[in-house]
Every structure is written in structure tokens, then in C-alpha cells.
């Protein structure tokens, strides 16, 4: 990432609630909360389940596999820290939850809605590893 010295990419500032997620990323695991009551997978991290409102959410290791719900190729960077073009995407994981991410490793024109993707961890600092995604040629795309 070639960026002017006074522009660094904005990095997550983990909270007590979210720290397990970022710790998982550092170890190459995509963690997600699962409700002990209704078994739903919940993202972003919360204090109670949005489906059944159960208050016991346990961190589990997710599949890291999903499909692209929608995406946009960004050509006007948020700040100069981002090298354009970059792809911002919503990925629906196999467990049924959605997360925002970047699709990396391919030019934007190769990304498609419904494309199968797999998590790809990108270390940025000693604290922060970002869960980006890559197209997954071994998996079947969604319709």
C-alpha cells in the first residue's frame, strides 16, 4: 500500500466486545458469535442476539466461505491511503450472516454478484489483520 506518510489506512480500534474477533483474525481464524439459545450466527459483535434476544453469545470458528451479495469498485478513494480501484463487497457467509469486506487478488471486472469467495487474511500491523476475501475457484457460485 503506497500512501503518503500522513495518510494511513483507518484501522479498527477493537472494543472489549469485538476483541475476540480481531484476535481470531491474527491467528488466521474467522470467528463469529453464535447464539447459545437459537444457534443463529451473529455479526457484527453484539451483547444479545437480534433474533431471539438471548444474552449468551459464544465465539465459534466460522467456515470463512461465502458468496458475494453485492459489491462496488471504488475509484475515488475515501482517503489517499487507499489505492484505487478497490472492491468493497458484502459477503454472505455459509453460516448465514453478512459482513463487509474487500475482495482482493483480482481486477474489479472479474468480481460478480453470486461469486463464491473465501476469507484471505491480510496482516496490516502487529495488532490488526484484516479478513479480506478472494474469489474461490474451487467452490460453486450462487445463482
Amino acid at each position: 500500500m503506497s500512501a503518503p506518510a500522513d495518510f494511513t489506512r483507518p484501522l479498527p480500534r477493537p472494543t472489549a466486545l469485538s476483541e475476540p474477533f480481531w484476535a481470531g483474525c491474527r491467528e488466521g481464524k474467522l470467528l463469529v458469535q453464535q447464539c447459545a439459545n437459537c444457534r443463529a450466527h451473529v455479526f457484527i459483535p453484539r451483547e444479545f442476539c437480534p433474533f431471539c434476544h438471548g444474552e449468551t453469545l459464544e465465539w465459534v470458528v466460522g467456515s470463512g466461505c461465502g458468496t458475494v451479495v453485492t459489491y462496488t469498485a471504488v475509484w475515488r478513494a475515501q482517503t489517499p491511503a487507499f489505492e484505487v480501484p478497490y472492491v468493497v463487497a458484502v459477503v454472505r457467509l455459509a453460516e448465514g450472516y453478512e459482513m463487509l469486506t474487500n475482495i482482493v487478488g483480482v481486477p474489479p471486472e472479474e468480481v460478480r454478484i453470486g461469486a463464491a469467495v473465501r476469507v484471505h487474511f491480510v496482516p496490516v500491523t502487529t495488532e490488526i489483520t484484516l479478513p479480506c476475501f478472494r474469489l474461490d475457484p474451487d467452490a460453486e457460485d450462487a445463482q
Partner: protein
Amino acid sequence: MTGREAVIAGAFNTRQARRLEGETSATVTLAAIRGALADAGLAVADIDGVNILPGLDYERGARSFGYALGIQYFWVGRGAPGPAAVYEAALAIESGMADVVVIAAGEAGLHTDRATVAPWTRPSNEFIECWGLMTPAEFALSAKEYMVRFNVDPLDVAHVAAVIRNNGARNPEAIYHGRGPFTAQDILDSRMVADPYHLLDCATTAEGGSALVLTTAERARDLPGTAIRVLGGGSESWGPAYTHPPTYDRVGMLGRASGDRAFARAGLERSDVDVFELYDNFSWEIIRYFEALRYCPVGEGAAFVAGDAIEVGGRYPIVTDGGTMSHSHTGESQRNQRVVQAVRQLRGSSAANQVAGAEVALVMALGDIVLLARS
């Protein structure tokens, strides 16, 4: 009801510009309030309710500004600028909580670093900002999904931006007055910002202020201006902005229920509306509004807005001042500007693009709606 009916008695935009030298958010907000009070024939001493947003001071702005104006005790509205603030103020007046409410917003001097996108478009959530998601990219996500799902021709979406920008090109008060005319192809030929949105599909950034004054119909009878009736409204949210990925399934029908409520309360049919002052932050949003409001079936909005349907002179004229794309976009006051322009259309005093005989206006911004009518 109590028999008290709320009306809009004053509406005013300050001069809008890419940069207003020497102005601050406080001074342009004050100028907007002065202008709206003068338009209404009222004074600061008459105000007993405020919903004021200087700059981006969402937390303390209204109470600080009421205090700064020297008003000792005042009702505070919390609705977002634009249709939500207006309908909330109208209900406060009709229920007897206030008699004269000023709604205002203004911004100057906040977007100084032009290497970055505007400060109000840079989210701070830890699961959002690290991916480079700013406002155009956020809104692009749902537009992209819709356009793929319904196989929409990008030219049909660009047509919306061309219509709005051409309205602004004819408006001497728009910051891009004289900039145009544009064809849909011109929109697509502008540089890409966040696919499918090109530069000319997006709102601009500018500086300025806008304000409205509401009071009772009874009081307005003794005032010099033409009062505008507030017939109905609605407001709904889909959650905190910049927190959860905004897919089409999540945001596509935002405003449908509030639209149903607004029309039911007003006792109006969809066909009664003469002019649509819609929040045009991005071109496809206009198509989304007409679908959410049940003017056409979901997926058919591109055909609905085609041709001259949304032009001044068409059946569904939109964004007649040039909107956020051409008139101005200051961070928040642009949502008040939708209401200011609706008032001017209903008074027959639009600076340009007057819709002949306009009697009913619909103002919509995201999930917020208000229906206004000439007295």
C-alpha cells in the same frame, strides 16, 4: 386533535457556494434563521421551539443554538433535518408543545481537506471504515444489486441525474447554475466514483444554510406570507448508518411504510401530488423512492422515470431546484432545502422550474416523508 393546525410560515436558503469565505457553520445557520424569520414576518423573540443543526454537532447543536440565540426556555426537536424535522415540529405545534418552531441547519468551513471525501461521508465504525466504505460506496452497494437483479440499463439511471442537473443549470440560485445541459450519456462519461455511480450521479459538496419556520394556521393568518399546510408525514429508519452492510433487501423499501402513513394521514391519493422534492444524494435513489412509495411496481422504476415523466412539465416533476447534485449539499441543510423548495413551488415563487398550479408537494429524504399543500 386540538383544532390547532400547523403551517410553514417561513422558508429560506442562504447563498450557497462551494466555499463561503469568512463564514462558519454558526454564521450561515444564523443567516438562514434570520432569513426564514423575515420571510415569516416573525422575530427571534417569537421562537419557543428549535431543531437546529450547526455543522455536524448532532449531540448538542440544537440546545446550544437555542441558548446562543438568547431564548430562555424552548422545546427541542430531534428529527433529522428535512421532512422528519418538519413533521415532528408540526406535531409539536398541533399538540400544543410549541407555538413557533425554527428548523435550521448550515455548514461552512468543515470540508477543507480536498484530498479526502467530505467529513460527513467518512464513517468511524470499526467494521466499516477499514474497507474504504464512504457514502458513495455505501449507496452504490444497493444500487448495484438492484441494477443486476432487474437488468437495468445504466443509461436509464443516468437519465435521473441528467434531469436533476438540468433543473439546476436553469436555477440562478444553484451553485452549478449554467452548468449543462447534460444528456444521460454525459453522466456515464464522467469519471467513475463507486461503480455504478459516476461523478455526475452523486451529490456535490458545498456550503450554506437553510431554515424553516412553523407556527399555527391561526397565527399565520396575521402574517404577511403565504402559509403552507402540513398534511401528513412519516419517518422510519433502517438502523444506524455505516454499521451494517446496506444490501438492497435491507434498504430497498425504506420509506414505504412511512409513505403509506403520510398519505393515510393526509387523506390524499398518490395521484394528488404535483411536485416531488426528493433527496437526490445519488441518482438511483430516485427510482427507489418511486417504487417504495408504490408509484410503480418494484423493478419497474427505471421505465417509470423514463422520457419526460420526471421533467418539469411531466407528470412527476422531481428536484426542481437542482437538488444536492447541482443546487447545493452542505452536509445536512440540503435536506431542509428539499422542504424550502417545496414551499416555494406551492407559493408559485420558485426561482426556476416553476410547476404550473402546484397544489400538493411530497418531500422525501431516505425514510422521512412530509406532504405539503397550498392553503
